[in-house]
């Protein structure tokens, strides 16, 4: 029984490791500046995780194989209550490894979250609702028109509550897909109309909750042109799984071209761009 258990544990361990290293299923290709550092930290962590997992399972299997009771009479286990030296040793080593990982695991976070978007960032206001994304662009004047909940009227297509009396809003556009420039810091100002949502593009390696009652500013820099799927990553109701949109990472000229356009033309151009860029291939 001990031998069978050991073998089964080892087979499970082997299959699990193979599943991870097979390469068949892994993170999608990264498209942001911070992604390589994040992926590197993940690799270091998963190696530690994998080694610990494997070592523990091999150890467990070895124990149950070697120390199974073979029925020889008079045989007793080794009488020991433990070893203080070992306790100190493995506690210190484990603490060192875990806390080192923990400290290392803060650097990408700190680079993204502890300071505001750098000057010259491209800002977009993101307003989430059940079950659609709304992206509010500031237009050529780089000023967002004033918004207020009392102006929101979904049936009149004023999803973000633009105040029509505010002149700086005259050149603003609101669409359901996101277009950002490549190789330039992007600042997202995240808001929600109703419940908590979460902005997520897997290739970006970036997530943030959109909390009603708060405006949360985050920033990142995308460095690969293309069209990427955008998903909601915080349960927001029955159509949470369908709250889908796209993020377009565009060359600077196309962003400039978009910026000058009034609402209808902006939307039409977005449709055109969405058709122009394909999704990445997944094997």
């Amino acid at each position: 029984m001990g031998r069978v258990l050991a073998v089964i544990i080892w087979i499970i361990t082997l299959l699990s490791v193979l599943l991870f290293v097979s390469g068949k299923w892994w993170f999608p290709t990264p498209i942001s500046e911070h992604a390589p550092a994040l992926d590197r930290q993940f690799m270091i962590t998963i190696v530690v995780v994998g080694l610990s997992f494997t070592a523990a399972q091999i150890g467990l299997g070895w124990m149950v194989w070697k120390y199974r009771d073979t029925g020889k009479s008079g045989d007793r286990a080794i009488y020991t209550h433990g070893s203080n030296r070992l306790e100190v040793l493995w506690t210190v080593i484990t603490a060192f490894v875990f806390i080192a990982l923990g400290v290392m695991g803060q650097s990408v976070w700190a680079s993204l979250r502890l300071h505001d978007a750098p000057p010259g960032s491209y800002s977009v206001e993101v307003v989430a609702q059940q079950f659609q994304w709304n992206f509010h662009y500031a237009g050529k004047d780089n000023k967002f028109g004033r918004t207020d909940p009392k102006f929101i009227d979904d049936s009149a297509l004023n999803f973000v509550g633009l105040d029509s009396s505010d002149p700086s809003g005259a050149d603003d556009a609101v669409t359901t897909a996101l277009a950002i420039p490549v190789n330039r810091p992007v600042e997202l100002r995240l808001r929600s109309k109703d419940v908590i949502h979460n902005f997520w593009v897997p290739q970006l390696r970036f997530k943030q909750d959109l909390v009603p009652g708060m405006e949360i500013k985050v920033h990142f820099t995308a460095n690969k042109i293309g069209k990427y799927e955008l998903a909601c990553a915080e349960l927001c109701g029955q159509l949470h799984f369908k709250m889908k949109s796209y993020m377009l990472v565009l060359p600077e000229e196309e962003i400039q071209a978009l910026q000058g356009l009034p609402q209808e033309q902006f939307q039409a151009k977005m449709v055109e761009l969405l058709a122009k860029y394909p999704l990445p291939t997944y094997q």
Partner: protein
Amino acid sequence: MSVEHHEGVHRHPAPTGFIRKYIFSVDHKVIGIQYILLALAAVAVGMVMSLLMRLNLSWPGTSWPILETLFPTGAPGGVMNPEFYLSLVTMHGTIMVFFVLTTAPQGGFGNYFLPIQIGAEDMAFPVLNMMSFWVTLLGFIVILLAIFVEGNQSLGQLFAGLGPSFAGGSGTVGPIGGWTGYAPLSALGKIAGPGQGAGMNLWVISIAIFCVGSLLGALNFITTLLNMRTKGMSLMRMPLTCWAWFTTAVLALLSFPVLLGGGILLLLDRIAGTSFFIPSGLYVSGLLSGSNPNFPLHTGGSPILWQHLFWFFGHPEVYIAILPGMGATSHILATFARKPVFGYRAMVFAIFAIGLLGFFVWGHHMFISGMSPYSAIAFSVLTLSIGVPSAVKTFNWLGTLWGSRIRFTTAMLFALGFVSLFVAGGITGLILGQSSLDLAMHDTYIVTAHFHLVMGVASIFGMFAALYFWFPKMFGRFMNEGLGKIHFWLTFVGVYTIFVPMHIMGIVGMPRRYASFGEYEFLKTLHPLVLLVSVAAIITISAQLIFYFNVFWSIFKGKKASDNPWEATTLEWTTATPPPHDNFAGVLPTVYHGPYEFAVPGAPRDFVMQTDIDTEVPSGNGHNGHKH
């Protein structure tokens, strides 16, 4: 082997009559069994729900005739709609976490065996103990009501007149919000969508009731352990199960009140128009806050406040779910390895460390919630450090096995399985605890894989081990070992097959709580894994039928057991099988040794019971009550 004894005090005579003996009993043993039966019922409901979830994810759009009969609104034509699926997610989580993982390990086995293992005739407050069970059962009934209030049209309309949040009948099997019930979705009422009406009210009420039951139990455990240990049973001679139950009770005592507070605030937001969690300026389903009787005015609340209150409870809760299993594993490993627990003192410190640190890491559920990024850093580093005592425990389990003589009973297999699964599940905490990595991993299936492996599998294995181990003492008969071994193998291989692929799904990016994965291109490659998981789930869930049969058949027809069939050392094995009403037939035991004196050199047998006055155990080598 003679046993010195001293007089106990008869606090109450044994009850007569069926009702006082088996229904409204104050006997901790009966109450323990009642909790275990409750958990067995709850886990069956939870498993059926997870089965339905897997069917929907793997074969979407399929018509399941039974659903059409039972839930015509939620599954029209037998095809689950998304709100039906999400209500399954919510109820599965709620029922499993509360009514399975927080009942059987502590209220079930803890209630039965803590008093006996410390040499007491009962808990400190037997009547309170009885009340804690019945209050918990009431909570279970209320959560089941949520199924009917949402699933049935006429029942759902019963309360609709009371207010906008009271309408039910949305066709789901309960509220939608996940077991975490984040505000404001959970606070807004019917206007926020199906499953946000009466079912959600019942959910909050059920949890509030459960909090009360849990607190009553925790009070009892702590007082009993502090006050009622028998002569010679010093703290460092207690079995590790007692340490685990004690720490779990302290965690429950200090965390459940916070959930209760949060739940009251949520209920007030829903039915009394307050704005603890609902901010200003909301526009929901085409209505502006305050513009319509269906959507009264709310201003200034903080959704993140709910998360803080919930997770301040929620994180200790997961340690409440796992600590008793750790205690049972240590206990059972030592017994069937015929060897003392390696590093008993370190094990006690590790239990304390896990319990204490467990209160300081709740923010790791909230890294990207919008809370301060500086606090995220603090929570992250603390979270990684909580892995240290858990690792220490794993090393000590392996140390216990080293140099041992292992007897592979079913209980031992499950205890070994616990070690394997706890490592598998716990180790991914290293990934999820890092704030940077959480940017990619939050709300994906890697989170689901992690917590299922630790809570939904390791913890359950702890319970299985405990039941196979203590069954002979509780019922005087063994569970069938052959069936037990089949149960073990199917379940062990099954749960690995279910949950290891989920890590990969999370890495690719599969989000949690999605009713369907068909909308996104990047998820399409995962379909073979989704199928594999579901097939494994179907087999594993079916295998549990063997377990249920074994339990109930063995109570009546199992092989008869003696007082100490496993040749174990702790106090429960010194008394009759099953124990008499006052546990020790009026004569409380005296303890001379530590709890795990196996393989003592020179002793006549390979184990020395705690009450054995005749056998010497080498001092300086163990924990015989010395203060070092």
